């Protein structure tokens, strides 16, 4: 195993034995997903059956076993968003990206997620791109939001490195 993960693991080994869930939360936070070798390592160090860790990791929605894309797109499908048409919005985004919610595009750029309520229901329907909230989204607005985004991303790709802040103009 890499040196890097080793030291990380040292940090995760808390003396008073924090729970599996909180351990996994830390790993998730750090890597943005749960790498297999780390889960195996935790199982060994903590003497917890691997299957128990694996069960917990797949039970809760906050955990992901596959790496996430560079940009995280979250569509809300809470009740309030639903009655204001979030399903149509989600479907359009899904279609444009060519992936179902829960997956990441092949180029590793976008992850699409669908959550059951973001708690900002007054602004329904909601789409969150890289942590930025967009309220009252319609399918047409979503596409527009998207077009700007992809253009932006393409330009970025040509230059080296990523300065990809959320496209501010989209907020309007």
């Amino acid at each position, binding site marked *: 195993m890499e040196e890097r993960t080793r030291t990380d693991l040292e940090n995760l080994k808390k003396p008073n034995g924090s729970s599996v869930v909180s351990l996994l939360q830390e790993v998730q936070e750090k890597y943005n997903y749960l790498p*297999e070798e780390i*889960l195996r390592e935790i199982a060994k160090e903590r003497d917890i*059956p*691997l*299957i*128990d*860790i*694996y*069960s917990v990791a*797949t*039970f809760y929605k906050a955990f992901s*076993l*596959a790496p996430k894309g560079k940009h995280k797109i979250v569509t809300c499908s809470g009740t309030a968003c639903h009655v204001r048409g979030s399903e149509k919005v989600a479907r359009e985004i899904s279609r444009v990206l060519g992936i179902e919610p829960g997956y990441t595009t092949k180029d590793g750029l976008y992850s699409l997620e669908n959550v059951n309520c973001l708690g900002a229901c007054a602004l329904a329907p909601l789409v969150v791109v890289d942590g930025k909230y967009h309220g009252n989204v319609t399918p047409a607005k979503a596409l527009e939001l998207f077009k700007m985004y992809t253009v932006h991303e393409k330009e970025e790709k040509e230059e080296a490195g990523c300065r990809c802040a959320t496209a501010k103009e989209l907020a309007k």
Partner: protein
Amino acid sequence: MINLTLNGMEIKVEKRTTLLEAAKFYGIEIPALCYDEALSPYGACRLCLVEIGTGNHSRLVSSCTYPARDGLIVRTHTERVIKARKLLLELYLATCPSSRTIQDMASKHGVTTVRFKQKNEECILCGLCVRMCAEQMQGKAIGFVNRGIKRRITAPFAKKSEECRLCGGCMYICPACQARCQGPQEENPVCNACLNLSPPCLDYFQEAMCYMDPCVACELGTGRKAKFTY
């Protein structure tokens, strides 16, 4: 000792007895798919339902997990119980028709038609294998993953488990991985096939190890490759 009423009888049972155990002791038969005497109760199959309480406050609970309590009024075969049980069996047949255990149980309870769309799953997620592995084989090799309708039984990362000792305990206890009954054939009205229905894998497979997703036994029969999805 705990005093309770079971189908009108005043009975006494030891502390920590479950309603299912109490009923069994008094010779009342309650169907169960996820229960095994040697394993801890789990309450997943919901076939062991009984009605507790009376009047408007009565409700159904799974007898395998419900502890006997003083003064409890338990009825094991009320109309409400039978109705729920029959519909659940119909659902079982519609979901996992290949199991002989389920087929037998359904016919015993007079469930003859299936009004739901037919699925063909190999596992009913009763969790017997998981408990067998953990509690009797000290294996902890397999377990539940995901939740809700996506719930499955598998080994970690859907890979060959390092903990599994290939004891076959999981296959032994599984009520679902059995070959499907073909019905009586013309030339041989009594086929006796039921006698031989058992997981075929143990005979065929030296390296048999059941990840249950789908189970290797079924893979053998259908020639399908295991497909793991998240």
